[in-house]
């Protein structure tokens, strides 16, 4: 038994990292012929495996997320949620998908048909591309590019354009309003998002996600401790771009029906729905990678497969998104933009300044990390608490001194205006 497990763990199909078997396969292909002629086969096979893995993962993840989200939200809403299809309603997502596929795919007569058809397809691309750089394990990154953080931002910045495509081509006023709102919001929230990511990049000196995880592994600390402000601003601004409830102004159901995807039906709507979930998952994945150590879990990753740790973190953080969705009412667009420009942006700027100072102090003086990191952690946490609480107090949307209860009148006639 020990021999078997030792063999398993030492061999290329070590399941702690699924990158190992793939690497072995590619190496084997590359070894064909004289060792260089068939490199292009390896090139293509590697690409195909990466794409297939992401596609498969996303497919399963989205199906599971539909169920998880519906179930969790229904618990918040004191109801049972799906419980008829399959055990615990587990087959509900499948049923949903089947239903959507069977539905008629309507195309507005006066709309722009090509763009209308293209939008739900194109909107999938950024989601897929983001998952391409997420490190599921030490060697489990489909594309380990050196500017991954910037890449994520760049990919995300393409989404508003697709939203616009969907909204404009529907030739529906609600859709157009939704598209305009979506673009305005995406532009505003990109700035605090980039700035909060800048804090992380400055602190770690890495722009590739694996490097950031390894940095956290090296100093044995999660970045949320060192960068609480960045974690907060990133979470808020990234989740704002997801079009989920507190910030779903682009598809605000009660105002503009469904925003940019009002006119979509059938599987085209299903794609938008899936992308929304996929993006939410991507954001929680990025959040987990940047601020919660990614696949690393205080040495436990030696025994637990790294990808399991990462998936666990990702799903737990996704829970935070579900809770915000289930509990908060929507903000108005001007309040949302105010929030981005007047609350998140200053906080993110302060964070960048503080990080720059700290990194300079650390690097220039060559102080050992053991001393400097705990100090930074305490300072940053205190600073972020003070800043957030103080700012909320002074910025607060509504003033404090307002009646929060209705006045009760027993003698109505006397209280009538004369």
């Amino acid at each position, binding site marked *: 038994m020990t021999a078997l497990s030792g063999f398993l763990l030492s061999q290329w199909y070590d399941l702690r990292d699924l990158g190992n078997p793939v690497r072995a396969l590619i190496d084997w292909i590359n070894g064909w012929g004289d060792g260089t002629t068939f490199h292009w086969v390896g090139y293509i096979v590697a690409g195909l495996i990466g794409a297939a893995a992401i596609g498969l993962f996303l497919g399963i993840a989205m199906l599971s997320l539909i169920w998880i989200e519906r179930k969790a939200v229904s618990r918040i809403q004191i109801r049972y949620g799906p419980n008829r299809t399959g055990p615990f309603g587990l087959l509900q997502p499948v049923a949903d998908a089947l239903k959507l596929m069977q539905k008629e795919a309507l195309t507005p007569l006066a709309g722009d048909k090509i763009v209308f058809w293209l939008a739900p397809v194109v909107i999938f691309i950024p989601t897929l591309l983001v998952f391409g750089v997420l490190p599921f394990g030490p060697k489990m990154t489909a594309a380990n590019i050196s500017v991954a953080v910037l890449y994520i931002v760049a990919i995300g910045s393409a989404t508003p354009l697709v939203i616009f495509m969907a909204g404009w081509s529907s030739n529906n006023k609600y859709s157009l309003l939704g598209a305009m709102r979506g673009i305005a919001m995406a532009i505003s929230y990109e700035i605090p998002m980039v700035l909060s990511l800048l804090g992380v990049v400055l602190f770690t000196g890495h722009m590739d996600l694996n490097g950031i995880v390894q940095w956290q592994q090296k100093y044995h600390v999660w970045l949320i401790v060192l960068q609480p402000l960045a974690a907060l601003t990133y979470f808020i601004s990234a989740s704002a771009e997801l079009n989920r409830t507190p910030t779903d102004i682009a598809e605000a159901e009660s105002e503009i029906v469904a925003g940019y995807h009002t006119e979509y039906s059938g599987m085209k709507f299903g794609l938008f729905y899936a992308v929304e979930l996929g993006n939410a998952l991507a954001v929680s994945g990025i959040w987990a990678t940047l601020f919660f150590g990614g696949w690393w879990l205080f040495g436990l990753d030696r025994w637990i497969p790294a990808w399991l740790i990462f998936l666990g973190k990702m799903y737990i953080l996704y829970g935070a998104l579900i809770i915000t969705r289930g509990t908060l009412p929507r903000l108005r667009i001007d309040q949302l933009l105010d929030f981005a420009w007047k609350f998140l942006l200053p906080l993110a700027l302060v964070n960048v300044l503080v990080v720059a100072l700290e990194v300079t102090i650390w690097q220039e003086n060559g102080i050992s990390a053991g001393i400097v990191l705990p100090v930074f952690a305490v300072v940053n946490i205190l600073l972020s608490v003070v800043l957030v609480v103080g700012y909320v107090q002074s910025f607060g949307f509504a003033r404090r001194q307002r009646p929060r209860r209705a006045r009760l009148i027993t003698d109505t*006639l006397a209280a*009538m*205006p*004369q």
Partner: protein
Amino acid sequence: MTLELTGERVVARINELLPDAHAEAVGKSVYVPAESLLAVCEALRDDADLRMQHLTSMTAVDYVTHFETVYHVQSLAKNHLAVLKCRIDERDDPEIPSVVSVWYGAQLQEREVYDLFGIRFAGHPDLRRIFLWEGFAGYPLRKDFLQIAAGAQHPGLPHFPKQEQGFGVLTGPNWTAPPSHES
């Protein structure tokens, strides 16, 4: 308990305020001639004694020989209620002054009466049909509405309102109903 003012009481007050209003009391209600309706309503609203600030309900009744509009007005401060009625003898094109300038709340109720009884309210800022569409033939709450011979004409538009005039908002005072089948 809201005091339901008797007709005499209200008429006495009206006669004090407006001697030539010719209001006349019948039981609990006050019959006001259409010519002095607006003046009476305004006086009742502004009178410190009655303070009829709140138009509770406004409707009309078709008595076949004549129409009657009924106004239930009340004072929140004094907690009393009076019933004003106004008789319209004309049937083909009944018209009566609008009280929207006195009570803003009459706006929708007068539109409803116009829609269902065909009583025109002179001075109403926005007199359009509300439940039925412009061009609906007949006024359903009139007692003779069902007497349209079956098959002779279906109430309704001969065609959709947008059919001829291009596009845009086509209901409203600038839009005239297309000629109906009757002619």
